[in-house]
């Protein structure tokens, strides 16, 4: 009787894990597969259902003349996104690590400040920052965009790193200190490997959000620079241009390649 119940519960467990798990996986990527599918549409527009298979949107996307504005926009956006990731990592990873060890009250009062940018619409932040910049007599610039993105997206990494930093065994850092390691060495050799998955997850989030952001770039950046998301927004809303879907296809391919390489040659992760 008890055995039967336990068997049923186990069966339900696996049914849930595999059944619902795979279903949710499908739910998560279904729309993306749809977008990918549309990028191979041979029709003149992204209308659904697609009319046939072709690589025309990719060809068009890689056409150096017809798609020059997209290329420039992508280059600009990737430049901003990469720099943002660098800045955010530098200030955020140490901070999350430190606050995981800080006295509760201090951390509790500081964290909301560090997380606040998540809930301020970025257009509003961009406006406020631009106003502040003008008050200081400064104009928009690459640096302003970079700082703006870093301020707005740092919380993403802060939160992902904090989750891991809070779970690290403090004895490891203590052991490192007793072995004469400087703070920097302890951080680099012991703490950093511990929070690395959080940094990577955070870096990815920051990169993608920065790549996708319009307002901050638009308001703080050099007005002549076209940025990818604004470009894509216009292309899609105006004309359902298939290249928009192709851009996603390219991004996905690049990320998949990167990921496979990382897994192949990436750091050892002893369990």
């Amino acid at each position, binding site marked *: 009787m008890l055995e039967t119940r336990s068997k049923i519960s186990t069966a339900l467990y*696996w049914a*849930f*894990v*595999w059944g619902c*798990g795979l279903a*949710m*996986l499908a*739910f*998560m*990527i*279904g*729309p*993306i597969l*749809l977008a990918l599918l549309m990028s191979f549409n041979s029709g003149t527009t*992204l209308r*659904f259902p697609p009319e046939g298979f072709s690589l025309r949107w990719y060809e068009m996307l890689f056409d150096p003349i017809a798609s020059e504005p997209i290329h420039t926009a992508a280059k600009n956006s990737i430049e901003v996104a990469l720099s943002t990731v660098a800045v955010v990592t530098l200030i955020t990873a*140490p*901070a999350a690590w*430190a*606050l995981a060890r800080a*006295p509760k009250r201090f951390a509790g009062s500081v*964290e*909301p*400040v*560090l*997380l606040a*940018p*998540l*809930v*301020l*619409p*970025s*257009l*509003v*932040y961009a406006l*406020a920052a631009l106003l*502040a910049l003008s*008050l200081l007599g400064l104009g928009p610039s690459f640096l302003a965009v970079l700082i703006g993105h*870093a*301020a707005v997206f*740092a919380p993403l990494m802060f939160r*992902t790193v*904090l*989750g*891991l930093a*809070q*779970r690290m*065994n403090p004895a490891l850092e203590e052991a490192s200190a007793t072995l004469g390691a400087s703070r920097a060495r302890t951080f680099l050799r012991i703490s950093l490997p511990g929070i690395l*998955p959080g940094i990577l*997850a955070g870096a*990815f*989030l920051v990169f993608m959000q920065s*790549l*996708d952001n319009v307002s901050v770039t638009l308001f703080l950046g050099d007005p002549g620079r076209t940025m990818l998301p604004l470009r894509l927004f216009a292309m899609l809303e105006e004309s*359902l241009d298939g290249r*928009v879907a192709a851009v*996603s296809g390219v*991004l996905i391919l690049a990320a*998949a390649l990167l990921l496979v390489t990382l*897994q192949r040659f990436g750091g050892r992760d002893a369990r």
Partner: protein
Amino acid sequence: MIRKETLLSWPMIAFMVLFFISPLLLLAGISLRGADGSWGLGNFAAFLSDPFARGVLTGTLALGAKVTCFVSLAALPLVMLYWHAGKRLRGLILICTLLPMLTANVVRTFAWVVLLGRNGPISQTLLGLGLTERPFSLLFSETGLIIALVQIELPLLLLPVFAVLNRADRKTLEAAEVLGAGRWRAWFSAIFPQIIPAVLAGWVLVFASATTSYVTQSVIGGARLIYLPQFVYREVGVLFQWPMAAAISILLLASTGVIMLGLTMLARHERLQGHA
């Protein structure tokens, strides 16, 4: 006195104070400016005394809560699957999680326009199965918006959780099983507590993102569902009433901030201070 262990947090704190808090203070200053040029809390009072506006505020918070809730439900089996998966399947799940984020927001949103539309696969399938008589559209409905937001925000919860799961400790799971815990109980008592800090992290990200996702809210939700970001964008871009926009933003920030503060405090509870 500055405590040693907080030292490394100061660069970020300084950065945020300088580049986020000071513009925010400026914003707060602007929000105090009335339409007639006077100074005071008029904008806040005007917003809060208007039942319609209040409804938009609570509706926005409710949207965040609903999305967070459904994201959690959708994430649970995936997280468990990830936990049980071998190296290869884990890699696959991870790639699948990154995919939605690798797709520009406009594209994701567009995909949902197609999926939820009356000629989209969902409607057509149900029609084909005879489950509905007429094609129907989930576009411009809160149901449709929530479905889309759940899919779009799901990775924000999954990523931090996966990061922690890679480092999770299996020993306590073994202990739980030896003590006779069934699969469910073992998972929820030995593994789940380890990911709670990451789940809270994910909740913060999902909640914040769902409440501020202007593009998805407006494209999928349409004009008959209004959330704060649309309110704010309109005050900024169409009506040019910045003080009001500032006041609304600050209200959004404050109300969401309270929720995040709670989650943050929760993450620091002694129960969750175990380590690998």
